[in-house]
């Protein structure tokens, strides 16, 4: 059990103050649903100013768009209940689909656009004349809540993302250093090596989650964001280089004779990465690398010399990347502004999963509205709204139904808490000060849990549903029947959301992993075909995003974790070699182009087959023929590069072993064949 500390209670007190300020203003200027302003405060609240800012921005944008959509829908389909419900259901589904294709914090705007339309539109099905007022007040109340929260968050004990971001960067670099050392000393595949590698991937993901918010923090941090993005890209490149180095070293160590000259160099390099601050002068190391470089003729005569040459090239990359990373870290620490635009980050997108989530939400909403219209249940609107909310909030998760179930349990508890307030306490108080005093104990306690990431899933539904069922109002009528009905409608709505999601998306993480595998193979096929839409940076970005996805989903003690990650790493390297090969293809002599094109086509077919779970011919013989063809050419930088890339691809494919002629594993969990 994690208990909140003093800092969490300060956060909770700030949030509560902001909520009360919002409610007070809402009462004072006569807004009809002060609870919406308070809800907003609790939904957006986060310990960091930058996070509040980014969420607030996207929440406002999303609410305005959603409310406008509801106004348009209600005016278009006035007197046509069924069509209006269909329109709103499709709108929510579409928004969820769009939201799943972008990342936080921007996806928030799409989600909000979706369920704001539901929150504004469904209550208006019975009374369309009020739609404009409902839409305007909803937006007003949300903006009011956000302004109050931002003010309190910025003015009272502001907590900056900056120091945390710097700490994460240091963690990330440290993880990179540790794993580099493991690889160089040949411990990359040991238990420690695997732990370090996993940490590397996870640290990258957590840094990324923080970086997106840094852009909305103080101006200084906004300037650093470009550096951070560049640093991430360098570290991604470092990662792929290390993967390449690792299995070249493994292969070379098995061959007698070749490794003798290599060992002293690796030892020198490992010493370089032994301590956090050790050495910055690479000249001795580079000289040593140059000394070992085999000649151009040796590369052609001897496969092992070729392998050694590729290893040395990667070691050079390693040194220069590491120097760049340290330079960037220093620039961030000193707050030097970034020059020029940082490269955009391209991420993994999964249209099928997104569409499935959108469709299931629309189906759930339609089911609920049919029941509502058929049965004339006066609280059906609330239930429908909750279906939309439950489907939107958890759409991005692998296993939305399980989380939504937890949400439902906490909502039930919250309805009881709300009942105690509404029937036990509110009748006895008659002023705003008293209201704040009676609300304080519960909200301060539950609010503190909001500051602790593992507890958010419990605290948020508790707080939000309590606020929702209390329906704070200036003159309230105590109506037990209405309260019970609304509470039941809430639970029915969330329950239906759970049901729809467990029906449509029951596969959980294995499905997500499988989708990642398909996407990887598609990208490889595209690279082999020389698709102009793919370049190195874009591919590396996407692959790294997929690696994060895999690492997060393999967080437990799954026995096949190592194998799946290894497969993914292998594909990263094959992809990079394909890019290099494509680049030199133009400058090659005629007969070699012929052989290389045949090889690339064979590879493309094989990757496509892997993506579709089909079986095709083994591309290795074709690759060997191309290798022989290129080896026969007179030496030049281009042919050398082609030779190195071909050898790299062949090496990865042959290590991988599960490719081509053999059937892909029927088990959906394994990323079998992702490498081939």
């Amino acid at each position, binding site marked *: 059990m994690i208990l909140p500390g003093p800092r969490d209670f300060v956060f909770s007190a700030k949030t509560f103050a902001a909520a009360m300020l919002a409610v007070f203003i809402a009462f004072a200027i006569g807004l009809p649903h002060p609870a919406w302003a308070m809800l907003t405060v609790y939904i957006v609240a986060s310990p960091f100013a930058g996070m509040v800012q980014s969420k607030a921005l996207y929440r406002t944008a999303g609410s305005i768009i959603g409310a406008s959509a509801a106004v348009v829908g209600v005016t278009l389909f006035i007197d046509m209940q069924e069509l209006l419900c269909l329109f709103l259901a499709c709108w929510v589904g579409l928004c969820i689909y769009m939201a799943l294709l972008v990342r936080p914090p921007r996806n928030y705007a799409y989600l909000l656009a979706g369920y704001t339309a539901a929150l504004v539109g469904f209550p208006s099905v019975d009374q369309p004349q009020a739609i404009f007022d409902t839409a305007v007040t909803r937006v007003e109340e949300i903006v009011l809540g956000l302004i109050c929260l931002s003010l309190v968050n*910025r*003015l009272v004990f*502001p907590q900056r993302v900056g120091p945390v971001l710097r700490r994460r960067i240091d963690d990330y670099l440290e993880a990179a250093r540790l794993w580099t050392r493991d690889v160089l000393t040949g411990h990359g595949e040991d238990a420690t090596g695997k732990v370090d590698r996993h940490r590397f991937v996870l640290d990258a993901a957590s840094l990324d989650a923080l970086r997106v918010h840094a852009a909305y923090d103080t101006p200084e941090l906004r300037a650093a964001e470009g550096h951070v993005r560049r640093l991430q890209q360098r570290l991604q490149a470092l990662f792929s280089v290390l993967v390449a180095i690792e299995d070249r070293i493994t292969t070379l160590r098995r061959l007698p004779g070749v490794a003798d000259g290599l060992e002293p160099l690796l030892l020198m390099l490992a010493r370089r990465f032994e301590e956090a601050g050790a050495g910055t002068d690479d000249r001795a190391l580079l000289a040593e690398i140059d000394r070992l470089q085999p000649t151009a003729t040796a590369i052609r005569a001897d496969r092992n010399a070729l392998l050694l040459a590729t290893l040395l090239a990667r070691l050079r990359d390693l040194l220069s990347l590491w120097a760049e990373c340290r330079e960037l870290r220093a620039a961030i620490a000193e707050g030097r502004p970034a020059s020029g635009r940082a490269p955009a980050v391209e991420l993994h997108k999964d249209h099928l999963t997104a569409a499935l989530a959108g469709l299931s939400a629309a189906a759930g909403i339609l089911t609920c509205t049919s029941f509502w219209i058929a049965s004339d249940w006066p609280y059906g609107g609330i239930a429908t709204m909750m279906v939309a909310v439950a489907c939107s909030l958890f759409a991005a998760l692998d296993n939305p139904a399980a989380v939504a179930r937890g949400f439902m349990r906490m909502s039930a508890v919250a309805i009881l808490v709300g009942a105690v307030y509404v029937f036990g306490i509110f009748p006895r108080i008659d002023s705003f000060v008293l209201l704040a005093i009676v609300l304080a104990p519960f909200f301060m306690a539950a609010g503190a849990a909001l500051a602790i990431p593992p507890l958010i899933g419990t605290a948020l539904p508790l707080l939000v549903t309590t606020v929702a069922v209390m329906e704070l109002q200036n003159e309230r009528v105590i109506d037990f029947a209405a309260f019970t009905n609304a509470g039941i409608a809430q639970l029915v709505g969330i329950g239906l959301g759970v049901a729809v999601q467990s029906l449509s998306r029951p596969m959980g993480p294995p499905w997500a992993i499988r989708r990642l595998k398909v996407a990887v193979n598609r990208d490889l096929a595209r690279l082999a075909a020389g698709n102009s839409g793919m370049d190195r940076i874009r591919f590396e970005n996407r692959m790294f995003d997929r690696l994060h996805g895999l690492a997060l989903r393999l967080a437990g003690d799954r026995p096949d974790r190592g194998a799946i990650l290894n497969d993914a790493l292998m594909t990263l390297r094959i992809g990079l070699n394909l890019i290099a090969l494509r680049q030199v293809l133009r400058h090659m002599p005629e007969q070699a182009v012929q052989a290389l094109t045949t090889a690339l086509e064979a590879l493309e077919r094989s990757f496509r087959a892997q993506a579709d779970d089909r079986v095709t011919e083994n591309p290795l013989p074709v690759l060997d023929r191309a290798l022989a063809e290129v080896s026969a050419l007179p030496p030049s930088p281009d042919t050398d590069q082609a030779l190195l890339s071909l050898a790299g691809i062949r090496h990865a494919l042959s290590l991988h072993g599960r490719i081509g002629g053999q059937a892909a594993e029927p088990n959906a969990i394994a990323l079998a064949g992702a490498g081939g």
Partner: protein
Amino acid sequence: MTGEYDLAGVLVAPMLVWALLAFVICLGIYRVLGAVGAYRFVWHRSLFNTALYVLVLGTIAAAVS
């Protein structure tokens, strides 16, 4: 106090219009202050900015009414 502003048939409270106007003016002032480097002498930047905003809004309200 003046009456409500009429924006294409939608009546808007004057306070809202002033608040937006003050916000735009303040964005300009923040930028100038940042360029000059005045924030080096400010202890709590957000607090300073908020106070400045209130002053600008107050000035507008006083000038109009």
